[in-house]
């Protein structure tokens, strides 16, 4: 099948991001003096908005491109919009942070856009080779972003740990997909699903014993990327050491994209083995929720606390994965790819909703931390937030909103997101899992509310430098807050769309 213009239209967001990323590097090299970072920032913002527009326009071109390598379906469009909006917001948030900290700016934006290219391919890939390359484009860009404060020992140490454990995880993922290729004879996800189903029906595979091993290896690899326990050990160190905005980015967009791979690989290719991988998800969900929340209880650094909290949040999402495994959705007819079918299963809608809310609230929380941490990220401990309600009522209010949403208080997006997950778990008769999740939410209340108590009921400790105003940051953080509130109060639109 020759490539047509349509093929390129279906990867237009990635093309735009690549062009703008390269353009930023060129312009940054040519620009002089004060205009350097400003042009790069503007270009990055325009580029991400254009890519976002292209992502939305994908709705009009569903289907596959490049001989089935790229699949534009509702899931890929949804996550394109989510990821590209995140990139646009991070660009806004980063503008003044980069200037006051005196970092070279162009490369930051370029890497951000390149990482988004990788994530775009991760969510729309239907081919394991493309999935692998997308994962690596996004990971390698993130490693560099983590080291962005390269004269700060913590930042480079975080990048080193992220790089080593990330590559380690990649090797596992790669071994898993290799075995899957060997057992099924294909690297295309729908073809693998059909091949495995056909061979199972025909009475077993020649290399069938490799499948559970392959599934386990893929789960180890992706478990690292979404920081699910017991593969979460790197998360606290990396999230604490990396610049707060980078942490905000990799803990939201990168994680969402990795969850999409998890969904596609297990839901499309390994659908016939759901009884086996159900237990993987079940154990990982319980471990992630429990270890994440218990780890967060004794943290005094806010970034580290949110790192453990994000492990717990990944656990809640894995609950929904267990639900999916429990209820294998109606079989998709051969040749009829699961374009809408992927959304139809119970739990999938809950995952999409949760990831959207999680992205907004977690990015918002890290944005506030980046702001309060100030130059050189010196003020990130709990005591630095004492009295914030008096010193900066706006920042304290925003932080309170994001933390309450992370906790899951009614009228925030986090409440409904958790509600849908728990509801789907109860409907799937996973009572034990739902009860563990509920107990964990109660444990989590302690550490989230402790920050709020510090902000409003403790006097400020020591002299803190003033926080410079930044309109771009305010706009970015406002976007996060609006999404959290909107999905908390009027979730109808999104839910209606998800139900379709």
């Amino acid at each position, binding site marked *: 099948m020759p490539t047509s213009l349509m093929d390129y239209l279906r990867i237009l967001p990635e093309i735009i991001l690549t062009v703008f990323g390269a353009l930023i590097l060129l312009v940054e090299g040519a620009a002089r003096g004060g205009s350097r970072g400003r042009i790069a920032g503007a270009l990055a913002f325009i580029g991400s908005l254009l890519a976002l527009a292209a992502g939305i326009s994908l709705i009009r071109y569903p289907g596959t491109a490049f001989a089935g390598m790229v699949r534009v379906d509702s899931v890929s469009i949804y996550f394109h919009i989510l990821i590209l909006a995140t990139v646009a917001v991070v660009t806004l948030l980063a503008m003044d942070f980069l200037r006051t900290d005196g970092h070279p700016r162009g490369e930051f934006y370029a890497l951000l856009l390149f990482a988004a290219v990788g994530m775009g391919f991760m969510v729309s890939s239907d081919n394991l080779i493309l999935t692998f390359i997308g994962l690596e484009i996004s990971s390698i860009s993130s490693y560099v972003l983590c080291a962005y404060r390269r004269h700060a020992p913590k930042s480079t140490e*975080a990048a080193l740990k992220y790089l080593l454990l990330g590559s380690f995880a990649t090797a596992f993922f790669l071994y898993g997909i290799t075995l899957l290729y060997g057992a099924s004879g294909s690297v295309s996800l729908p073809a693998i699903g059909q091949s495995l189903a056909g061979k199972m029906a025909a009475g077993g595979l020649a290399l069938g014993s490799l499948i559970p091993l392959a599934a386990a290896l893929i789960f180890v690899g992706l478990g690292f990327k979404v920081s699910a326990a017991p593969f979460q050990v790197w998360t606290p160190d990396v999230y604490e050491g990396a610049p707060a905005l980078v942490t905000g980015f990799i803990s939201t967009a990168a994680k969402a994209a990795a969850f999409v791979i998890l969904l596609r690989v297990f839901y499309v290719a390994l659908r016939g083995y759901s009884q086996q991988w159900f237990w993987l998800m079940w154990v990982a969900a319980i471990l992630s929720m429990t270890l994440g929340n218990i780890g967060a209880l004794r943290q005094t650094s806010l970034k580290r606390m949110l790192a453990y909290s994000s492990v717990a949040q990944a656990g809640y999402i894995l609950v929904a994965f267990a639900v999916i495994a429990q209820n294998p959705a109606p079989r998709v007819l051969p040749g009829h790819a699961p374009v809408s079918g992927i959304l139809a299963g119970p739990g999938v809608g809950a995952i999409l909703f949760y990831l959207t809310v999680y992205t907004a609230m977690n990015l918002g929380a890290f944005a506030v931390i980046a702001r309060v941490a100030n130059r050189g990220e010196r003020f990130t401990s709990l005591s630095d937030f004492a009295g914030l309600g008096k010193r900066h009522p706006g920042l304290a209010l925003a932080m309170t909103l994001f933390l309450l949403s992370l906790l899951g208080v009614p009228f925030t997006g986090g409440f409904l997101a958790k509600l849908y997950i728990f509801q789907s778990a109860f409907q799937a008769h996973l009572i034990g899992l739902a009860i563990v999740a509920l107990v964990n939410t109660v444990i989590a209340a302690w550490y989230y509310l402790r920050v709020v108590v510090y902000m409003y009921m403790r006097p400020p400790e020591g002299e803190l430098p003033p926080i410079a105003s930044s309109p771009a940051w305010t706009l970015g953080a406002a976007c996060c807050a609006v999404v959290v509130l909107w999905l908390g109060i009027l979730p109808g639109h999104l839910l209606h769309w998800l139900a379709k």
Partner: protein
Amino acid sequence: MIPLSYYLILSGILFTLGVAGFIVKSDLISVFISIELMLNAVNLSLIAFSHYLRDMTGNLFVFFVMVVAAAEAAVGLAIIIAVVRNRQTLSLDEMDLMKH
């Protein structure tokens, strides 16, 4: 002809050696080499499957893995240099700025 299982077992042994090296070694460069060993063990499997299935995809995949490994090595060495400049050490045991 050498059966497929020989290649798969060899590849599994190499991968396990890579994992063991990653866990046991405390020298940064050795750990990095262990990762490369893991990736190349996977490449061996890919080539063996590709030959066994009479399918070119596996061969193609190997090239992508090599390119990605090279990119990873470039970024990895750059990060290692940044770390060494900050800390003057190559030992992973001393990377403990963030222990709690």
